């Protein structure tokens, strides 16, 4: 299995494991695209790729090093799927594999695009709150799914900082150090 296929596999497995472990405490609000597509194997996606060429969407990532990465992806894929499936070189992206347990898939959207994306769940907002460099047009990539009307959007990959304390001192005097 290629490295990115393996990652997709384990990501899906993680989603399924989490679904199997549903507890009282919270129902994770997975975006429809994630829960809908986990039964597809990569092979089937590749086959239907050519059959559904009109559902391809172009996405541009502005990476931390300033380089722009352009990919074509399918509608319905989450932005985490896009990064994983295309093996994009974004350090540390998607650590929790799309389960709303981290903020490493933080992406910054253009304002006009952000407005089209719709409401953010409390669970996503809770994790987004921990992201360094949070903006008013920030979202977690694992919760945003591609649609035709997002074709051509440019996403900025925010810088990260290692020290949460430095982060909080810079941005506010009241953000908590966290374990």
């Amino acid at each position, binding site marked *: 299995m290629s*490295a990115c296929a*393996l990652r997709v596999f*384990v990501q899906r497995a*993680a989603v399924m*494991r*989490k679904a199997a*472990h549903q*507890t*009282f*405490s*919270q129902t*994770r609000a997975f975006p429809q695209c994630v829960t809908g597509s986990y039964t597809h194997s990569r092979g089937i996606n590749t086959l239907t790729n050519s059959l559904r060429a009109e559902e391809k969407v172009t996405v541009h990532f502005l990476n931390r090093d300033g380089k722009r990465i352009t990919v074509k992806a399918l509608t319905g894929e989450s932005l985490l799927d896009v990064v994983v499936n295309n093996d994009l070189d974004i*350090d*540390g992206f998607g*650590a*929790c*594999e799309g*389960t*709303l*347990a*981290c*903020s*490493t898939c933080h992406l910054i959207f253009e304002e006009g695009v952000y407005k089209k994306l719709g409401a953010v769940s*409390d*669970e996503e*907002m*809770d*994790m987004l*709150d*921990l992201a360094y460099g*949070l903006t008013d047009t920030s979202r977690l990539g694992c919760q945003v799914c591609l649609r035709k009307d997002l074709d051509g959007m440019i996403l900025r990959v925010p810088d*990260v*900082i*290692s*020290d*949460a*304390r430095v982060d*909080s*001192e810079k*941005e*506010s*005097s*009241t*953000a*908590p*150090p*966290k*374990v």
Partner: protein
Amino acid sequence: WKEEDGVGVLGRELYLKSLGIHNGKRRVRGLSSSSSPRVCIVGGGPAGFYTAQQLLKARQNAAVDIYERLPVPFGLVRFGVAPDHPEVKNVINTFTQTAQHERCSFHGNVNVGKDVTIDELRQAYHAVVLSYGAEGNRSMGIPGEDLPGVFSAKDFVGWYNGLPSNKELHPDLSFETAVILGQGNVALDVARILLAPVEMLKETDITQNALEALAGSKVRRVLIVGRRGPLQIACTIKELREMVNLPNTRADMLPADFEGIAEALKDLPRPRKRLTELMMKAVKEGGDDKAEKCCGFRFFRSPVEVLAGADGKRATGIRLALNKLEGSGESARAEVTGQLEDVDCGLIISSIGYKSIPIDPAVPFDPRRAIVPNEMGRVQDTAGLYCSGWVKRGPTGVIATTMNDSFDTAHVLIQDMEAGKLDLSVNKPGAQAITALLQTRGVRTVLFSQWEKINAEEEKRGKSQGKAREKLLDVDEMLKIAWS
């Protein structure tokens, strides 16, 4: 020479060390002509794995060896993350990929500082990275702290997460009230595990003995106590929301603790604002009167003494000093007022921070900050020695914080390699020499493929109980299965 199980002859060992050869059985790596950097990482938790990952990626000929004291890898991801947060443990998948990388090897069951010294590692490798975390805890420093019934959160969490050294903890859960000192995410985890319905826990990887103890627990009320006010609370909103939503549990805040908070809301950045609003909602709504359990947050209180019963044999209460706040925001300080308050309780858990310890006298250590002194991950005054994770920065931050920090250390190390600060023209023997050396000392390592046997056994045992896994609690049992 034949491969033997037992202790090698001293002379042979020295010869092997000087040449970096190990006969026959393994690939000889140390004699390549060009500079293949060999890096040693001390500690098999998130810091170690993320540092390794970045080194392997950034340098196509680097070989990385990870040494871990326990037979099992993953550190606090295995022993710290709460059992009801399995998705946080997904990072194990990426660590597994790293360990299985052809240029990486994992060596468990090696106690660095005791079985092998840092100097010996530095002789065998071009660079050594200390990623061994914080295995100690800050103490409250108050009378009665050592009484039965008082635990550090580190030990309590280790107990329900199957850390071998905490398996005999046997916390007495037959009291109605538990008091937790500290209001970070660890404190919230402990409170949640104490109050969660057993149904929520029984399919997780919580240890069976902890599950049974919690099923029989009489604890109904947990107080989470902090020195300062609601605006300084150190936990994050996800954990607070879980507490507020916990079935059959009422969140209990004191309105008096929230005086003036509403006015301060508008100036707060969004994360702090949402966290504070959630607390204020809990104050306002009071919570379900029919709930049998209660989780109370108490602010402006510091522990000054653990109180013992008439026989003086165990903790029966805690004396708290009431504080007032000087200053505001993150830098606000708690000042004593002189007022005291006693709380009856039978379980006291101090969750005021983990703490790193020095593991080798050859390594500089700052006892005040309890970290290895360093500049961006380069250990002070010690060429070729680096650090990442909590031992470098102090014990705060989530896994992603440690991830970014470890990437930083790896980048600094790579920079030093490229700038010629590490002499890569010298061949270093790496794991071959260290494994041979350990063998002469009667220490046998656990390879990653052998951890996978332990892993399979734990999953198998868990399956028969409807749990994600049943962790092995005994190091000897782990070794037996690893080497079977």
